[in-house]
């Protein structure tokens, strides 16, 4: 089973690579366009994938941060994310993975309960961000945020590592033990 490992490849000089995994092609494309407009001290590289494993798993690229985008309006989106997670090595979850849930603003269209996503995210000990990617203002802010996170995961911010970031971002309130 092909699995992404964070330290399989040496980092390239001054390059930060992010991998966005999600089924909502149009939304991801817009998010990526916003991200590339941001000022970034290192060169930004973006990989867009619908799911994992990557087709290029013969020669997988070095990835500094994986963002799983879940559309709360689509059960298919959640299912796709759950299946893709199996192809990520455990060591990625030390701060190099985060989840992004979109669509919470339109409650009537949500077919996935937020609680379901929270449980999933808690299982993988990673941060969960909410953003309605359809709204331009929110999308632009999220793009900024992701670029900053990427720089930290990439080691380009002195004194802060991915693990530091993880402990800052993780919610101290996970679902209670009974819910699990």
């Amino acid at each position, binding site marked *: 089973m092909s699995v992404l490992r964070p330290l399989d490849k040496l980092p390239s000089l001054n390059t930060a690579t992010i991998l966005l995994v999600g*089924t*909502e*092609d*149009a939304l991801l*494309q817009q998010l*990526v*366009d916003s991200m*590339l407009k941001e000022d970034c001290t290192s*060169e*930004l*590289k*973006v*990989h*867009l*994938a*619908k*799911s994992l494993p*990557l*087709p*290029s798993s013969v020669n997988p*690229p070095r990835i500094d941060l994986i963002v799983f985008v879940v559309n709360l309006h*689509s059960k298919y989106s959640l299912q796709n994310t759950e299946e893709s997670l199996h192809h990520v090595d455990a060591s990625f979850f030390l701060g190099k993975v985060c989840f992004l849930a979109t669509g919470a603003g339109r409650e009537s269209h949500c077919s996935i309960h937020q609680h379901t996503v929270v449980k999933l995210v808690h299982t993988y000990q990673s941060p969960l961000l909410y953003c309605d990617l359809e709204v331009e203002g929110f999308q632009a802010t999220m793009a900024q945020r992701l670029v900053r996170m990427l720089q930290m995961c990439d080691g380009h911010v002195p004194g802060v590592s991915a693990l530091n970031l993880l402990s800052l971002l993780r919610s101290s309130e996970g679902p209670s033990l009974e819910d699990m």
Partner: protein
Amino acid sequence: MDETVAEFIKRTILKIPMNELITILKAWDFLSENQLQTINFRQRKESLVQHLVRLCEEKHASLNDAALLDIIYTQFHQHQKIWDVFQMSKGPVTVSFRETEENAVWIRIAWGTQYTKPNQYKPTYVVYYSQTPYAFTSSSRLRRNAPLLGQIFETHNSTTPLQERNLGLDINMDSRIIHENIAEKERVQQITQETFGDYPQPRLEFAQYKLETKFKSDLNGSILAEREEPLRCLIKFSSPHLLEALKSLAPAGIADAPLSPLLTCIPNKRMNYFKIRDK
């Protein structure tokens, strides 16, 4: 100007609601700016109409001009008619045409017989989308006149040049972005193109599926799965432009390609009401 034409114009203008009058007259583009400026649009409709008819007389409006006005009125009020679809197969009539931006040609046909002149008050309207072999018509008299309709299509064949469409994927050429699933994207694009073609889809607003099939479930021991009788279920898809919406599902990542043949067969089968039963 012929008395009948004058009467026809008068009745057509009377149908037009006041708030649409100026728009429709401008679209008609028959009366000049100067003439339109002499009109007092605040007067009572009857006198306004008389004034307009006089102006049309001054400009020697013909039957064709009057028919064109009627088409424009009907285009604005197309929702007040019920449309049937007929496929082209291959009396005296009055035929008028008007093209719109959506590659559609609106045709107005007034039918006559061997012994009578075309009746301008009971015309048939046909909307023909030039990239397809389909025409939408309104009128209950059509069955009698269908063979005549075929004749008309042959003589008035539209020679609109086919648009050249860019068939390439609309993918951001920024080299900093790597699309991991580009092969899949291309496959989806290809299948979508094969299924729907390159040109705009005919405008359809809904499709209805009446299901009378047994319930199928992945879960074992589901109560419904054990039912012998078929489950009755009605599914209706509606959209301002249903076929374009279906066409965009796979490229948007919302559905897998190829789409279910139940959806893609709509233009092919020329139906949008389906009854589905188990074999």
